[in-house]
């Protein structure tokens, strides 16, 4: 099999001493698209931040492996170079650093010394992807995310995804704050990446996004755990019926973190 596999086992994560994830198990293989759904406050974003290594999140037990590499022993940049990518819900704004300079630096870090992409080749690649994502070409010369609208930021995250071509991508609420046209464009970008070598974890609370990106697997998170998994039909049932039936089935009254079943 060509792609990589991200394996998460019994993951426990704290923020400021408070446990948010309480034993998450998940396996994502190259070629697969997984969706994690769930209401607000159930630990979905914490999972994505913990995988990438956000400084505020502390993994207290469990493991994250990318093939045979221990992700938890890697620095954030090493995780990225190993093939992980996180499209963030709130991308940082960085004054004075142009989008193009940033992306070139990121791409070259990945390619390694001596294998840097030529400037011309880089510009061609960037222009092509920006056109594909229907982005204004002068956004390449704007400062990174600074003054970008919500939709522009999300497109810019997908642009980075397409430029960096990771093995496993996590999309943290990439659909929030997007109008329908932007949602279609963003979905088009993700679908373009689909293939044997690309595994993806889509985090969302709306079924809406999954109309455009059909997942192979759907998981529901509540109280810091994956409480139910299934195929695409699970997402459709959630869309039609909401989350209450799962809560009833599992005897959960309050689905948010901090509540026990």
């Amino acid at each position: 099999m060509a792609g990589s596999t991200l394996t998460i086992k019994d993951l426990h994560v704290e923020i400021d001493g408070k446990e948010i994830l309480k034993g998450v198990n998940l396996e994502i293989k190259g070629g697969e698209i997984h969706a994690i759904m769930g209401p607000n406050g159930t630990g979905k974003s914490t999972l994505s931040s913990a995988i990438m290594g956000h400084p505020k999140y502390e993994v207290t037990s469990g493991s994250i492996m990318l093939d045979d590499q221990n992700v938890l022993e890697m620095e954030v940049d090493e995780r990225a170079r190993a093939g992980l990518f996180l499209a963030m819900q709130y991308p940082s704004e960085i004054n004075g650093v142009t989008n193009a300079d940033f992306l070139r630096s990121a791409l070259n870090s990945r390619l390694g010394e001596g294998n840097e992409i030529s400037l011309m080749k880089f510009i061609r690649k960037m222009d092509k992807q920006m056109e594909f994502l229907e982005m204004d070409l002068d956004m390449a010369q704007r400062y990174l995310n600074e003054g970008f609208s919500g939709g522009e930021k999300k497109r810019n995250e997908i642009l980075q995804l397409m430029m960096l071509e990771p093995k496993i991508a996590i999309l943290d609420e990439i659909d929030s704050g997007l109008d329908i046209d932007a949602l279609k464009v963003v979905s088009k970008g993700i679908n373009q990446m689909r293939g044997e070598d690309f595994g993806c974890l889509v985090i969302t609370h709306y079924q809406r996004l999954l109309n455009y990106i059909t997942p192979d697997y759907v998981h529901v998170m509540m109280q810091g755990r994956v409480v139910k998994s299934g195929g695409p039909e699970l997402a459709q049932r959630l869309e039609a019926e909401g989350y209450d039936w799962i809560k009833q089935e599992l005897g959960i009254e309050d689905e948010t973190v901090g509540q026990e079943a």
Partner: protein
Amino acid sequence: MTTETNLSFDKDFVRSFSTEMNEPAWMEEFRLKAFELSETLPMPRPDKTKIDKWNFTQFETHTVKSSSYTLLAELPEEVQALIGEEAAAKNLYIQRNMTPAYISLAEELKGQGVIFTDIFTAIREHSELVQKYFLTEAVKIDEHRLIALHAALVNGGAFLYIPKNVEIKEPIHSIYLHDDADTNLFNHVIVVADDNSSVTYVENYLSTLESANGVFNIVTEVIAKAGAKVQYGAVDTLAKGITTYVNRRGSAGRDARIEWALGLMNEGNTISENTTNLMGDGAYGDTKTVVVGRGEQTQNFTTKVVHYGRNTEGYILKHGVMKDSASSIFNGIGHILHGASKSNAEQESRVLMLSEKARGDANPILLIDEDDVTAGHAASVGRVDPVQLYYLMSRGIPKKEAERLVIHGFLAPVVNQLPIEGVKKQLTAVIERKVR
């Protein structure tokens, strides 16, 4: 506390140096008067930085001899890099320590009456002109001890005079090369732009030594007469161990413009004063300053615009990055005097600290003695945002490189606005070297 100057140099020394340099009588008298003043005047008091332990007055040598250059090809690599293209070397003065080592001025400019020479030649050959401006208009001899001491011991510098209505397109470039560890420099630069003239002057203070013990006492006077325009660029990269007092001051007449582009990148302790006096109605002053502090150095950067004339505009923009254990004070002062109606004073100072031990402080000060004016200030001091670094690193960029991007990004808004292309390039290279 003792504030005695206790100089290793006396009046006889000053007299004989003046004689040796073949100076006219007025200059010798001026030096002697300054020397007397230096014994009684108080030290300057840069706001929020204590300098009573700093050594500005004790040094062993005043006079060092260096050989000059006949061909540009003989110049050290670092200097070559500053000159760049052949064409840029047309109007060039190189001073090696205190020795005038190379001078060139385009024939066309000479024909128009432009004077560009080392300060000693100027004092001898353009005596009256120099006397008229030497510490008389922009800076005064009796302001404080360091100015007086400077005047008594001037041992280097340049003089640039642009006659009325002459507009110089190519930049005039001075390089003050420091490559002798015994050097203590008292450098005096005068730029006089007569009515409706314009000029771009760029200077580099450059040490090729890793470190040295020495005192650099630098005074620059820029006189922009009615309708004149002066763009003044400077990139200072003096070595570790050099204690620097540098005062760059401009005086702008009616409708005159003075624009400063300063890269203050010394490695040693530095007190920098940069003042623009907007004397005439409609005068315009703009200062852009970029600073990177590192190591153990302590620095004080005071930028001031004083509005005397009506309808004057003054702008201050300063961005500084502090690394390691470096500490810096950024004072910004906009002063609108009574009568300077319809004037505008704006300033912005931003400091980014990269380590726990680095210190930075920004003090915006507005002094307004007139009702009918506009003024504004913005200041911020902060540390690198760990979430920003996380974001950059999450794309595979190593931490060092991520920090480098953030620093360049922080300074870019000032660097990109510098009016002189050559200074922009030099500064980018220096910043790159310092933040790596």
